[in-house]
Every structure is written in C-alpha cells, then in structure tokens.
C-alpha cells in the first residue's frame, strides 16, 4: 500500500477535520475512494502533530459502504495515531454496514467504536 504516491492535493476531500480542544473531529460527507482514504489517513497523522491532539473522532455515518480496504485503512490509522500519542474512536457505523463487515470476514479489531458523536466524545473525555 504505497502511501507516498503523489495525489492531487488541490481537490478537497469530501471530509472536514475540526480541531476541538485536545481532539480532532473528522466528519466524512460522502463516499471516499481508496486514494482519498489514504489521504485522509496522512492528513490526520500530520494534524495530530500540528495540533498536539490527544484524541481523534471519525464519524463514518455518511459512508454507505465500508469494505475490507476502508476497514483496514481506519484500523491502521488508529494504530498509527496511537503511536503518535492519540486515541481514536470511530462512530456512526450503520447497522447494514456492520452486518456486511462481519459477513465479509473483517475480523481485525476496528479500534474503539461508539454509537454516535455524543458517545464518542464522552469516551474521549472532553
């Protein structure tokens, strides 16, 4: 999985990263393709350092499909962020998406999850 491929940074990702206190709140607005997911991963890792964040919350409620690649990219991101000293929580996995992930056979622990934004923020301890 090459993470250093040159991508087009001028196209904005359909996702926003907000810095709120010690946490980064990531809200994804539309389906992301593989390259965009990898870009999000890179951008976030960089922001953790710049904003000295202690926690990341990723809201994936807008994603109607989480396939093996997306699951892996999110799990990797959580581990990478942990190595940089930030905890990650993923919120908003739709019931259909959860069912499909299990049927697909994704068995890697998908880091910490919470039902929604509120629960996620609580877990991060704001």
């Amino acid at each position, binding site marked *: 999985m090459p993470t250093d491929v040159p991508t087009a940074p001028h196209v904005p990702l359909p996702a926003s990263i907000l810095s709120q206190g010690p946490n980064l709140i990531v809200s994804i607005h539309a*389906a992301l393709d593989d*390259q965009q997911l990898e870009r999000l991963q890179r951008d976030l890792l960089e922001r953790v350092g710049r904003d000295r964040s202690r926690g990341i919350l990723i809201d994936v409620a807008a994603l109607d499909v989480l396939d093996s690649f997306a699951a892996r990219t999110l799990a990797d991101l959580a581990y990478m962020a942990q190595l940089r000293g930030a905890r990650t929580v993923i919120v908003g996995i739709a019931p259909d998406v959860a069912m499909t992930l299990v049927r697909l*056979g994704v068995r890697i622990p998908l880091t910490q999850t919470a039902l929604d934004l509120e629960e996620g923020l609580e877990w991060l301890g704001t």
Partner: protein
Amino acid sequence: MASEALRGDQPYDERVVVELVPVLRRVVGARIKDPHTVEDLVQETLARLMSSSRRVDPDKLHHYAAVTARNVVATYAERNDRARNRSHLLADPVDVAPPPTEQLLLQEDREFVAAALGQLSAEDRDLLVAHEVHGQDTSTMAAEVGSTPGAVAARLSRARASLRVEYLLVVEAIDPPSDRCRPVLRALSSSDRRRQRELDVNGHLLECETCSQLADRLFERRGQPAEDGVVRVPVSRDADVVTARQQGREVAASAGFSTSAQTLIATAISEISRNIVKFAERGEVAISLVTEDGRRGVRVVARDVGPGIADPDVALRDGYSTYHGLGLGLPGAKRLMDRFHLSSVPGEGTTVTMEKWLR
C-alpha cells in the same frame, strides 16, 4: 396522359404499375377529400414507383406502392402545413439555395464517402454501387453471381456496416492501432452477435481505447444502446470503484432488494472492482437484472485485461494477499453473494461473475 409518359420513359413494369392505380386511389382517397388532389397525388406516386420499380421485387410491389402513397400524402400534408404556418412571411427560407458553407460540407462528405468506399473489398464495393447507385435489385444481382436474393441482401447489409466503420475512420482521421480493430468494429457495426463472440469483441474493447471510443460512436449513429438493461462501468481508477458500487446499489434498489442486501451487493462490487484497479489497470463492471427459475436477482460481471490469476483456488483463500491487504477481497465478495464464479486465463485476464437473488 400519365400512361403516355410512362410508356415513353420506362416500359418495364407499365402494366403491373397501372394495375395498382385503383389501390393507390383507395389509399390516397382514404386520407384526402378533394378528388383533384387525390388524382394529383396518385400520379405523383405512380411517377415515383416507375423510377424505383426496377429495384423492387415484383411480389412486393403492392406493399411498396401503398407505403409510397402514404409517404406522398404525408409530404403533401407537411407542405400544406408549412405553407399555412409561413403564409405571413415574405420569403420562405427553405427554398433558398444552400449556402456556400453547406455546399462545401456536402463536397467534403462526398470525399469522405469516396475514401471510405476505397477501403472496402472490391466485391463489397461493386455490390454496394450496383444496388445503391445503379438501383439493381437483389434478385438480378443474385442471378448474376449464382446466389440467392437473401444471401445478396445479407452481404449488402454487411457491406453497409463496413462502410459505416470506414466512413467513421475517415471522418475522424483514425488509423486503427491493431489488426484486430477493423474486424471488431465491423462485427459491432453489423450487430453480428456470433461474429462478436468469435472475435471476443468485449475483450478487445477493454484493451483498445480507440475502438472503445469508436464503438460508442457506432452505436450512437445507430441510435441504440449496446445491450438493454446492462449498466456498464469502466474501471481503471480508484474513483471508478466508488462509481461501480453506487451503480450496483441503484440497480439492486430498482430490483427491490432491501437496503441491507444493497449494502452487501455494493460492498462485493467494491471488493472485486478494487482487484481490477490493483492488478489489471483496466476493466469493466457490468451490472444487470436477471430472472432465473422465477427468481429475480442482480448479476455482476467484472472483466479485466490483466495478468490473470495463476491459481484461483489460492486467490479465493482467506488471508491470501499479494499486496498488503487483508486478503479478503475475493473470498469476502464470495461470502456476500449467493453465487460466485471466477475464471482466469493467465496473461489474458480475469472474469468474476456473481449473483444475488431476491428472497
């Protein structure tokens, strides 16, 4: 008066054509009230029939005459309408001679057709010219070459299809990049399914950018989609994976699948189209609705031209991955769908066919 003109110009089918007069009067009379106009239109129809009767099979002359009469009446009505609509105008622009630019375009078009004809085989060219330009009918032509009219008509149709391809190539100034291009395009143009299968047309269209673009133009020209009810998504970039799975969801939704089944289907499409992007660089995903044994379902066919898979059984095993993935792509998609089939020819490409049925 009319019969004199007929006798003078074309003595061939005079009797046959004159026999048609009562039929024509009835056809025209059913649509037009004024008896003088009826007579005028009948005469006009006769004149048209005389000029084309040599090309028409005598047995079919009755039908041909009736259709011609209807056309003449339609033209007359159109002319009347136009005269009425434009009666307030001083000049009717339709009757103005074509402007010089148009003449130039016409001239250019003639050159294109001539160049395209030059690319056909001598036999095809002679056949087309004899029929379309000199107006020979298929039975005469068949007698000359010792064949049947049906066979000649089929050849003519193929020759026309080839001419369409050559015309397009000339107009677009395209030199086909490979030896396979011409046969493929001609098979497409003539809608010859058997020949298309023999040539593996779809495979070639995936490989050859030029042909895939020309194919679209050929269909556009004929005004019909490639196949009814099949959604095709070309897949070569990451973004195409998203398009393919969204299209898949839409087709599944239209078939009445629940949202959770739609998610399963979309996810399976996501997995297999990612394989195309990762390993083959170019391919397509075709999604269609199918009915089998009274069940309705969605069929997804993902084809690529790529290195192929040496050992499909290994590739279908959980955790087997050639890049740093989870190794869940193919086996995962298989678990999500009801039927899954993978066939691959090393060095040529891979086809995955999978289905999901409504319960």
